[in-house]
């Protein structure tokens, strides 16, 4: 992948938004990769969690196109293991929020399988809708 890096991107509004919404310092991550190594859903992701942080650090808004931010289940395994105390699920939530606030929606209510909806526990519906729809 070709990527253009520039000082203006590194200090862009996008980087400030991610840090403000998440409350996290992006540059605290030194890319050790421990989050990616232990992530239980990494196999379903198109990009590793640590790579998502790297792109956000560099101000690359293309990261919003990644499926990874929607696959992260906020299980907090990475939080328990990060040696730098970075709260990665908060960064993922910030990236999801930026997309959702711009109009994205991850659940098409008309296409939810009725047999699944009948069986789902209530908290999955309440929680899932709060997390993936604005």
């Amino acid at each position, binding site marked *: 992948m070709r990527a253009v890096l520039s000082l203006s991107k590194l200090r862009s509004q996008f980087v400030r938004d991610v840090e403000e919404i998440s409350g996290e310092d992006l540059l605290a991550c030194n890319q050790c990769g421990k989050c990616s190594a232990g992530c*239980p*859903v990494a196999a379903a992701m198109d990009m590793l969690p640590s790579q998502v942080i790297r792109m956000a650090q560099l101000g690359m808004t293309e990261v919003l196109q990644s499926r990874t931010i929607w696959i992260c289940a906020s299980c907090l*395994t990475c939080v*328990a293991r990060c040696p730098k105390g970075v709260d990665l699920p908060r960064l993922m939530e910030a990236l999801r929020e930026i997309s959702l606030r711009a109009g994205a929606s991850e659940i098409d209510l008309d296409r939810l399988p009725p047999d699944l909806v009948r069986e*789902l*526990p209530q908290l999955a519906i309440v929680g899932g809708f*709060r997390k*993936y729809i604005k």
Partner: protein
Amino acid sequence: MKVSYYPGCTLSTKAKGYDRSGRAVAAALGMELMELPDWQCCGATFPLATDNSMALIAPTRVLYQAEQAGEQVAALCAICYHVLKRTQTALERDPVMRDRINWFTEQEYGGRVRVVHLLELLRDGLGWEELSRRVVRPLTGLRAAPYYGCLLLRPYDEIGLDNPEAPTILHDLIRALGAEPVDFPYSTECCGSYLTVKDPTVSETLSRDIVASARAAGAQVLVTACPLCQFNLDWPQRETEFGRTGDEIPVVYFTQLMAVALGLPEEDWGAEGMYTDPRPLMRKWAAG
């Protein structure tokens, strides 16, 4: 002893058996779970965005109701416990946010109520030794795999129930009931949680790995404290080779195992209507 109790939405609907068995075992151990009057849903997610104060309103209303009722409130659902405990911690550490929420709800939540899980009351109040003395039908020889999942334990500095990487609370409970806790590597892995709403194939892959790991370790039953884990582990088994031959591993709530060991009648197990019927297994030990 009376303890305020917050059942939450799922224990009043899809997971009634967890509620039933939880109340029954608490009563058998001298604890009366007093349901909060007029409670409402906690929202089922703790907001991870710092500017999303709206999602703190529902759990704060619950905490306010609990504060009116007493010093502590117990939950059974791991998600309710997670959301309420994190909200309680967040508002204790951030009085400005608490004022902001109180201004909106027009309720003065003081930030003092203690959120506990029934597992905590058993470990820290009753104690494992006392629990094992109360057992009348020891589950001797039952190989039970403790499945913790994620939100019951993490993040540690806000939840603080047990070690987030090497927990023992369910192991200790299983041992106190006379059964054998089965160690397996997926004990604290995530079941996929809310992904089951929008990407069921992802969560079903995760859950099948978890169940396969427990099976390989020789487990006869999986034990959980979370209605979403219960669903995510139990429901996808129907489409596996084991589901087709009726060899699924039942996924039970810890309170259901307790109900058997404490000699409670079958209606108190709350085990009817689960995808994989655990009752044939439970009856073996109930018969003594």
